[in-house]
Each structure stands twice: as C-alpha cells, then as structure tokens.
C-alpha cells in the first residue's frame, strides 16, 4: 500500500537532511545581578554526513558552548538544534562528546575508563575483550592499561579520553580541543590516526581547536567564530587532496594561503 501511494503521488526530490542543523541558536547563561550573558546570539551551521568540520575562534567565543548545545547538554534560549532531522533535547544516541578537560574518572584505570564507552554503546563483553586492547595499542597506551589517570601525563589522559570516545563508537563525534594538551609530534600522530579512522568510516566530526594549522590540515571545512557573542565570520572549504600527508602539506601553497587568510579573519598579525 505504501508502494502504491508512492507511485500515485510522487514524493518531492529527497533533500538530504544534514547530520546537524543548527538554526538561529541562542544560548545565554544567567548571571547574578546582571542581565544573562549572551554567548551565542543566533548562530546557524549545517554539517553534512561524513563531513569533518573544524571550528576555530578566540577563546571564550562560545566554541565549547555550541558543542554542548548540539549534544543536548545545554537548553537553547532560542533557535533549534537538529541531529539527523530530530530536534535535540536529550543527548542523541548517535552523538559522542570528547570534553576539553579529559573528564576521565579518577577512580578507574585506563582500561576501565575506556570500557565505560564500550559498555554504554552496548558492546558485548566478548567484543570488548578484543576491541579495548586494540584501542589501547592504537593510542599507544600499552603498558599503562592499569594506571590511574593521576599517574598519566596530560597527553596520555587525552588519548585515553579519545579511546573512550572511540569505544563508544558514535557516528557523530563532537571533539572539544581534543589534542590541546599534546606536544607537536604526538599531535601529528594522533591527527593521522583520527584521519585514518574517519576516512575508513566517514563519521561526521565537529572539531574545535585553537590551532589554525591543525584545523586546515584535518578538516573539509573550517568555520571561524568571532569574539563573543559569536558570529561566523568565515566558512572555508578546504580543497586539499586526501589522504593528506600532515607534514608535507604544510609547505603546500594552498595550505599556506588558507591559514594566512584565517589568521587575518581572526585579526591577528600574520
């Protein structure tokens, strides 16, 4: 019956609903003895399926805030967030969030912290037994399986936190400065791993960073936020070929040109 209806009344051409649609979003935090602090005042952003979007902007501009709103952790004062076409009120099951602070549970070991992601994704016990050690090797945490977070460096904690996100296996990853505490070399290694994972499975990623070169090197699109209240001052498509060589591409004229113009969008001296 459904088929015959379809045949009689041709449906409008299916416009693919983006993975994420942020429409005119307003977020304000109440303050004592002052009008609410307006952090986002009507921002709009679409993210297509499989797209890797980087967000850069001055600190305090509302980058973490927009991620929290997309994840349903903050109630909008106006506007709307939709993920896969559904308005977000509680965190949607397909979304995973990697926090700016690593948010590891201090009473759990590295393995146990990663297992939290696996358990909450509904992964079977048998699969956990192979998947978790594989993640630990991938993130070069071998030898620290049973270490508590306080015994790890900042970079190792961020990698464990990434391990938990990957164990949760979301099809939309929200990452808030995930490599901020890493040294240059480790950042390149982790960026490479993230790209490898993303290229294999084409999840959508929204990746907040304060590192402009990192944004250009990794993403399909770089969205530039202004200072608070955030507006989108620029939205670049990064047409560098994939797979990307994170070291060699830094000399590429297109790469240099793009980072230069983002620097000037942020009104910083070149």
């Amino acid at each position, binding site marked *: 019956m459904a088929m015959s209806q379809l045949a009689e009344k041709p449906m409008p051409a299916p416009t693919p609903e983006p993975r994420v649609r942020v429409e005119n979003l307003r977020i304000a935090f109440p303050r004592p003895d002052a009008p609410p602090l307006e952090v986002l005042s009507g921002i709009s952003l679409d993210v297509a399926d499989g797209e890797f979007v980087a967000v850069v902007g001055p600190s305090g501009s509302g980058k973490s805030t927009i991620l929290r709103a997309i994840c349903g952790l903050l109630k909008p004062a106006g506007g709307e967030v939709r993920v896969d076409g559904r308005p977000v009120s509680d965190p949607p099951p397909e979304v995973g969030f990697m926090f700016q602070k690593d*948010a590891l549970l201090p009473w759990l070991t590295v393995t146990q912290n990663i297992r939290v992601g696996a358990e909450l994704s509904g992964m079977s016990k048998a699969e956990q037994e192979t998947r978790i050690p594989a993640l630990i090797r991938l993130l070069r945490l071998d030898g620290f399986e049973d270490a508590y977070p306080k015994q790890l460096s900042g970079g190792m904690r961020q990698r464990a936190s990434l391990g938990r996100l990957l164990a949760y296996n979301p099809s939309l990853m929200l990452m808030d400065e995930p490599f901020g505490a*890493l040294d240059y070399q480790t950042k390149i290694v982790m960026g490479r791993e993230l790209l490898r994972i993303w290229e294999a499975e084409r999840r959508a990623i929204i990746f907040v960073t304060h590192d402009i070169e990192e944004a250009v090197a990794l993403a399909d699109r770089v969205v530039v936020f202004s200072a608070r209240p955030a507006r989108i001052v620029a939205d670049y498509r990064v047409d560098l070929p994939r797979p990307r060589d994170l070291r060699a591409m830094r000399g590429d004229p297109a790469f240099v040109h793009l980072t230069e113009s983002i620097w000037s969008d942020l009104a910083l001296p070149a």
Partner: protein
Amino acid sequence: MTDTAAASSPALSSGTAGSAAWRTSAAQAALILVLLGLWEIAGRTLFNPFWSSRPSLIAERIWRLALSGELWTHCSITLQEAGAGLLLGAVVGVPLGIALARAPRVAKVVEPVVMGLYGLPRVALAPLFILWFGIGLMSKIMMAFTMVVFIFMLNVMEGIRTIDPDHLDLMRSMRAGRFYLARKVLLPAVTPWILASFRIGVGLSLIGAVVGELIGANRGLGWYVEKSGGQLDTTGVFTGLVVLMILAMLANQLIGFVERRAIRWR
C-alpha cells in the same frame, strides 16, 4: 618528549619516609609511657589512689577480667551495639544523603528539620530509648545510630556536591542510566566521604552505646563503669575507660587500613 608518564617512583623516598614513620611511632609510644609513669608516681606519692587509681592497678584489673572472661563479654556487647548502630547509620545515611543531594528542592524543604534533629543533644534521648526499646541491645544500637546517621548523610551530600560537573555531563552525553551513574560516578566519588564518616562515627557510636549502658543495662563496658562508680571503685571506672579508649584506637587503625586500600586511585 613531554608526553611520558608523570608517575614518580616512590623508591627514592621510601627509606627516609619509613624511618620517619618509625620514629614517629616510637615517640608516640614514649609519650604514652611517660604519661603512665607520671600517673603511677603521682598515685604512689601525691594522691590517694582511691581518687585517681594507678596504671598498675588498672593493668592488674584488666588482667583479672581477661582471665575470668568478663572482659570479653563486656567488650563484645559494647562493640556489637556500637558496630550495629554504626552500620545501620551508614545503610540509612548514605542513600538518604545521595537522594537529598540529587533532589535539591526536597533537600531545601527537609533541611530545617534535619538540622534541628542534628543539633539536638542526642545523648538526652537515652532515657526515652530505654523506655521504648528496653534495656537490651536494641536501645543502645538505636543510640549509636542516632549519633552517627547524620554524619553519614551530611558527608555524603557534601561529597556529591563536589563531583566534577564534567563527569555528570559525560555520563549524560552517553545516555548512562541511573544505576550505571550511581555505580561508576556517585558511589566512587563519595567513598572517601563515607570512610571519613566511619572514622568520625567510631567514637560517636561508642559514646551512644556507652551512654545507653550508663542509663539502663546489665552488661557492657558502660555498665561496668557505672557499676564500679556506684561501688566507689575508681580502678573499675578507669579500667572501663581505658578499654574503651583502646577499642576506639583499634577501630581507627582498621578504618585507616581500609581507607588506604579502597582509595588507592588518590
């Protein structure tokens, strides 16, 4: 490469730390011996031991009570009362504390009542409890319970308040259920606070049990103190007090041991 483990090896410092700890223990023991010595000398020269007894008399009495089996009976009765009251306090206080911390609006409503009961000098409840629950174990368990239940409740509430909001958001972002959240975040976060409550509660629950025994009982260390006092037997009174003190110290050691095992992640 800054990206290495920050875990420092304790091997370097363990030698000096160990001998420092040993020296502290030695000094503690020396202090106790000096105080006992002074007491003994004063009891033999300055004061009539009728008023303040003497360590040697107390030691002798403990030995006699131990031989006759009375020491064990009284200790075990008082420990059962205090221990049961303490556990009951934890079993009731911890969930209540979690529930109130998770429901701030309910907490606001019940706060004046709770603080009123908390401020009440609960030792004054002893006569009432003897009346209600009789002179057996139950009245003392309830005394010990009322002394400690608020400690657990208030500590757990405070512990939940100190939870990192990112940990709650993390669990929410992965749609963790209520029990998963309790198991992975709430309980581990409040464990140090629960153990601290036990530490404070040991002394308080003993006070509760002993006060109950002073008012109405036929066994227990409190009863022994009360009976000895009635017979003008100061050595008996001090014997009861010394044994209570030793029990409290042992219980504290036990909790310290559990604390070091349970919160290794610190």
